[in-house]
Structure formats: structure tokens, C-alpha cells
């Protein structure tokens, strides 16, 4: 069985469509980040208190609200946990903003909520499933650390690709991954889904995945360059993408399948996490064909316009 038999698609000829597509999604994301939902950081990063309560019987949401008001809990939000299977409908997340979790009065908010709940629901029963209290200092630290770690690891990849290919390959691959991350975070902002520590792990996964995809295409380009130096670069890149197309579709399709299972059956704890992967796999696959490869060609055209000899095609041969 074969999905593609010698495909011959002019990918680079469609670069303006790609550019348009990428721009639309990037801009939509950036606009949402800047003006709408911003970065919907979870309690992990922005600090605050989050308490997940599992009631034996779902009480009226208004009643819960009233109980909190009476106990003097301020500025809280109540969010019902919805499970696609409909099982866990009697769970709620009560969230308090950062101000209630200063480093000194760390768990005042939690105590107030617990007291309010036990005063009002001692009969019907409830279990506190999860408590997260993150002080502002810790939140800031985690935020900085996550960003720092990601940037350093991108730099590491860039250096490795520079060493194994040429600098421009590294730049193009990192730019593509950056594009994917931006769009994925944009998707979180647009749908107002919380970015938590596990979502960061998912974004790191997508970076790894997208990088993997890009390198496969680049490797083929390098190989073809070593074989036929006279072919125009655009044609060569097209041919390389087409040659790896069936692999791209199968690999991405299968990974997408795994991730989709996680999204559908993984339960709501994994929801944000698997959402990031679902979006990430799609966009990561797209970007290796539509962002990274065209960048190589664009760079080459820019250099020859300036009368420079093409540095790029003289790619080092694989040395493994």
C-alpha cells in the first residue's frame, strides 16, 4: 500500500498562500495576546489559589457563590469542570487571584474557602481534590525559568544545526519552531485556555516534534544538493519535500492519531496539554514545509541578488 506515488507538487510556488496563512494565524494570535485574552496564564505562573472541589451532589452554583460571599471570600471565580464523557459534572474549580496568595499570607485564601465549604456542605459532602497555591515570587520564577529554558534549548538546537548543516538551516528551523510556538500560544489565547506547567511540557514536545520534522526535510535537501549542484534551488527543495512527503504525512498522521486519542480519552486534567499537542502537531508539520524550506530559498535568492556566491548549497556532507 502506498499513499503517494511520486508526488510532484510545486510547494514553493504556493509560498504566498503559505505566507498569508501563517500571517493570518500569527496576527490573530498576536491580536488576542495583545488586546483580548492576553496570555491566559494558569495559577502556576501568575500566582494565586486554585481549589478543585468534588461534591457528592452538585449544589447550585449560586449557592456555592453565596457561601463564599458570606464567608468573606472576595474576588473568586467559580468554574464548573466539564468532562466530555459527562461523568464529572459535580466538580468545580474555585480560583482566587494572586493578591490572596502573597508570600506571607500564603494560604489564607484556601482556609477561607475550606471553612466556607465545610460550614455549608458538611451534610451533602465534598472532597477537595486538588489545591494549588502559588505565591507571586514562585510564579514569576517559574515563568522566567520556563522561558529561559526554552530559549536556551532553541539556542542549543541552532548551534547544533549550524555545526551539522549551515547557519541558515539553523536559523530557518528555529524560526519555524518559533512560528509554531507563537501560533499555539495564540490558539490558547483565542480559546482562553489556561497555560499551565503541563501545557509548557506540551509546547516543548511540539518544539521537539516540529524540529524533527524540519530536519528530515533539510536532511533531504542537503543530500540532494550533494548529488546535483546545478539544479535551481527552488526545484531541488520542491523535489526534496515531495520525496519526504509520504514519510511526513504518515509520521505526522500517526503522531496526530496518538495525540488525538489523548485529547479524546485523556480526561480533563490532560485537556490543555493534549490540546496544545493537537494544534502543535498540525502546525509543526505545516511549518517544516511551508515556513522552514521557503526560508532557505528566500535566503539564497537574497544572496544571489546581492551578487554573492551561494554559500548555502555548498552544504557540508553528512559526516556520520
Amino acid at each position: 500500500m502506498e499513499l503517494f506515488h511520486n508526488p510532484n507538487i510545486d510547494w514553493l510556488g504556493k509560498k504566498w498562500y503559505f505566507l498569508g496563512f501563517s500571517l493570518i494565524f500569527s496576527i490573530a494570535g498576536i491580536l488576542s495576546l495583545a488586546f483580548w485574552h492576553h496570555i491566559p496564564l494558569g495559577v502556576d505562573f501568575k500566582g494565586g489559589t486554585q481549589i478543585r472541589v468534588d461534591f457528592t451532589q452538585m449544589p447550585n452554583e449560586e449557592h456555592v457563590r453565596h457561601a463564599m460571599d458570606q464567608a468573606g471570600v472576595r474576588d473568586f471565580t467559580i468554574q464548573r469542570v466539564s468532562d466530555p464523557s459527562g461523568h464529572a459534572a459535580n466538580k468545580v474549580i474555585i480560583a482566587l487571584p494572586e493578591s490572596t496568595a502573597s508570600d506571607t499570607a500564603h494560604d489564607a485564601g484556601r482556609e477561607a474557602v475550606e471553612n466556607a465549604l465545610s460550614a455549608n456542605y458538611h451534610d451533602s459532602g465534598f472532597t477537595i481534590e486538588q489545591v494549588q497555591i502559588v505565591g507571586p515570587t514562585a510564579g514569576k520564577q517559574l515563568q522566567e525559568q520556563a522561558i529561559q529554558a526554552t530559549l536556551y534549548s532553541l539556542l542549543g538546537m541552532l548551534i547544533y544545526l549550524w555545526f551539522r548543516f549551515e547557519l541558515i538551516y539553523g536559523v530557518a528551523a528555529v524560526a519555524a519552531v518559533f512560528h509554531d510556538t507563537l501560533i499555539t500560544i495564540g490558539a490558547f489565547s483565542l480559546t482562553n485556555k489556561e497555560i499551565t506547567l503541563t501545557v509548557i511540557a506540551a509546547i516543548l514536545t511540539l518544539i521537539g516534534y516540529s524540529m524533527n520534522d524540519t530536519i528530515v526535510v533539510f536532511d533531504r535537501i542537503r543530500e540532494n544538493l550533494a548529488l546535483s549542484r546545478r539544479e535551481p534551488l527552488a526545484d531541488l527543495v520542491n523535489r526534496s519535500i515531495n520525496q519526504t512527503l509520504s514519510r511526513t504525512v504518515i509520521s505526522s498522521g500517526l503522531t496526530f492519531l496518538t495525540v488525538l486519542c489523548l485529547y479524546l480519552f485523556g480526561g480533563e486534567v490532560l485537556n490543555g496539554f493534549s490540546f496544545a499537542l493537537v494544534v502543535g502537531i498540525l502546525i509543526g508539520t505545516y511549518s517544516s514545509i511551508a515556513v522552514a524550506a521557503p526560508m532557505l530559498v528566500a535566503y539564497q535568492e537574497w544572496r544571489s541578488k546581492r551578487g554573492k556566491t551561494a554559500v548555502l548549497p555548498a552544504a557540508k556532507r553528512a559526516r556520520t
Partner: protein
Amino acid sequence: MSKNLTAKAAFIVGILLVFVFGFLGIPHGGLKQSILRHINLGLDLKGGVHLVLQVHVAEALTSATDHDVARLEADLQKAGITGTTVGKTDPQNPETIVVSGIPSTRLADARGVMEGTDYSSYDVATNATGNTTLTMKQSAIADLYTRTLNTSIDTIRERIDKLGVTEPQIQKYGLGENEILVELPGVKDPAEVEDVIQSTAKLSIHAVVGGPYGTDADALQANNGVIPPDSMLVHGVGSAGMPDQVWLLKRTSEVEGTDFRDAQPSTDQNGRPNIRFTLTTEAGDRFYKYTSTHSKSSSTPGSMAIVLDNKVREVAGIDSAIRDNGEITGGFTKQQASDLSLMLRTGALPASISYLETRVVGPSLGAASIRQGVIAAVAGMLAVMIFMLIYYKGAGINADLALILNLVILLGFMGFAGATLTLPGIAGVILTIGMGVDSNVLIFERIREELRNGKSTPVAVQQGFAHAWTTIFDTHVTTIVSAAILFLFGSGPVQGFAVTLVFGLLANLFTAVYVSRVIFDAVLERKERGASLSI
């Protein structure tokens, strides 16, 4: 099979056995139990309390320099250098001690004292105005901070141990030298843990000068409106046993919290909870001297007040001289008595702490996440394996075997290295599966391509592997490089992701390339020359 191939197959089987039995032992109690016995689950999967706390190490610096100020004052006096003022002038710089007013004739002698071994942790400098400053060296400050953090960890560990938590983890955390991570699997109530960690029992025993009085005003009146400078007013706790009355107590205590060697909860002759304590030898001697001169039978009988966190708990007459054994009664509940004796046993923290993060995951939520995560991962993997069989037929078996073997080795690695599987770790597993499948797809597509180009089967297999290897090497090394960096700079969950990923990718290099190749070679060897390959 050729000799070479047999050796390779034996090698693979050997590796497999090492990983299966190396971490599962002799399997018993079912696969799930066997795996869970050897793989640590993170708190997000198992449930428990996770705390990050910050030790205010600067307090230790302030108190260390305070001590040195007093010591230096005494040392200068001893050396006959008078008229000097020793102090810390800038609260922003607790590491700096300023000595002013040293007579210029004695400057050399004073420097001699300050540059002695007792003050070797300080840099000494005299400025134009004649003031001499001692600034604690950066290295000494760093040492002090490390010591403070380590002492805090030890104290916290001792206290936690007494809570009876199995497998608690208490360790340094973050990049700075002032954070501690406490992870307690199976614990549900963070408030209890926080109380036990944080409470520093400030217990002391003071001589009673006067009282009890009804109010502060009464006390003042009884003492002609002046509180003697060596005394202080302390209130009772306001319970039936010790109503909110006021006592005038000696300011300096006879016994302090740090003087206790042991303390155990017990009951007095009336069955009320109390605390039996033992003092250190040195404090016992001191206490004996005091109680023997103030006992009922002596010429100056007196009474003592037991003060806990600035409240009088009990006032007792001194029946007879006490050396190092005694008891404290004070209207405690059983729980209070046991908590207090715990605190007395474990001593005080060297510096105060505050909480940065508290996370509690209920065991049910953890179990639900892991169940759903595993179901999803298994469903995904099955779907992938079925697809590989349909799409690549015979070669699909290679891929599926490689995939299973990869997972076994990954689990074995994690069990062996004592790594912890967390939710983000599961992400690492998914990426590993994804890249494992991708390696096989890369190889198979390449073999098909070579076959299409008219190569013979063995050559196509050989070329397919050779070409795909370059790509697989690059993708894997890139990802491992980035995972290593994530491990170095990331925090807990990100590190969990990185560890799983690195293990998984190393396993994949072995299974997808080496094992898969050996299977191909074995299949080819049994085929007739020129027979086609099922791919």
C-alpha cells in the same frame, strides 16, 4: 542464520532480559504492580502534598554579625582598647560592622584583634575618618547561607519524619541557595504539614518577680508605676487553668527552648496531658543552681513561670531543686502536648521561612489522570501499531517490535535510574513514540524508494538504512541536545519531561535502527535470492 547475526540476536535478547528482569525482578503480583513497584510516580499522578518554601537566609547573617558585634566589643575591652563604639550602622548591609572611636595610638593593636583568627571571615579596612569596617567576605556569606539552608533541611526533615510520612522528599530546590522542596506522597492536608514545619516553639522558664495582677494597670500600680528594667509583664493564655492575668517576670530566662534535650507527651497525676522534658547537662546544672537557691526550704523561696510563645502557660512554686528532669502542665489538649514536645525535640529553625508554592493532589484525581493517560496512550499506540502492520505489511512487524522494545527499555531505564514519571513525563513518552515511529517510517520509505529505483532487495535495505541513519541521527541528537539544556535550566516538571525524552530517544536509536536492521537481515537471509520483501 549466520554466526554474526546469531550473536546480534543474542545481544538483543540479552538486553531485553536485562531490562525486563533488571527492573521488574521476577514478575509477581501482575504486570501493573510489578511496574509500579519500580517506577516512581510523581505527585501529580500519585497524590500528595508538594511545598516549596523559602528560607530567609539573610536573617542568619544578621544574627551572626550581631553575635560578632558583641564578641568584638568584649575582645577590644579585653585588649584594653576603650572608648570605641562597635555596631552596625546600615540595616541594608547587615554584613558590615563599623568600629569607631579607636584612639589613633591603639589602632595597630585594634587591627591586630580584628585581623585575628576569630574574625577571619571578615575583610578589615580603615578609612580616612578613622573608622574601621569589618565586612564579611562573600565566600563566608555563601558558606553561612549554605549552612543555614542545610540546617533548615535537617530540622524540617526531622519534624516531617515524626509525622510518619512514608518516602518524604526534602531537598534543595531552584537555582538559588534559599529554597527547599518538600514532597509528601499520600498526605492530604497541607495545613497540618505547614504547621509542623513552621512552628518554632519559643519556650522559656522565667523567675516570677510579682503577680498575678488583674490588668497591666494593676501591675504598674503595684510596682509604683515603673516596671524594673530587668523585668517584663507577661499575660496568661486566658484559659481556665491560666486566666488572662498579668505576671511580672525576670527578663532573662533560666531555661530556653534550645536547652531541651528531649521532650515527650505524657499525663500528670490527674490524667491531664503534660510534657516531660530532659535538659542538656549544661542547662541542667544551671537550672539546679537556680532551683536549689529558690526552693521552698531555702531562704529565698520563689516560683517559676513557663512561657510559651509569649504567654504564661503555668506558674509553679519550686518544691525542691530540679536538675535536668521536669514536666510542664498547662491546660494542653493531647494534640497540643504532642505537637509541643515534637517542636521542643527538634529545636528551632535557624531562620524564618515562608511558603512559595503549595500543591495538593488528591489521590483520586492522581489515579484518574494516570488511568486516563494510560488508556489514551495505549489506544494511541495500538492504533499506530495496527496502521504500521497494514501499511508496511511484513516490515510493520519490525516497527511494532521496535516500538514495544523501546517502551520496555524506557521503563527499565527509568526504574534503574530512579527517575520519576510525571504528567509531563508522559508527554515525553508520547514524543518518544512519535519519533520511534518516525524513525521506522523514514527507513521504510527510503527502502521503498530504493526498490522503486530498481535496487535489489538487500541493497535497498542496506541503502535505506544508511540514508535514513543520517537523518535519524540528526533529529535525535538535536532533540537530545535541547532536552539536556531543558534539564539543566528547567524546573521539576520540565526536568521530568527532559529525562523521559532523553531515555526514550537513546532507547529508540537502539531499537529503531539496530534491532529493526537485525530483523531485516534475518528475514533476508531466509529468503531466496531475488524474492521480494514485504514492505
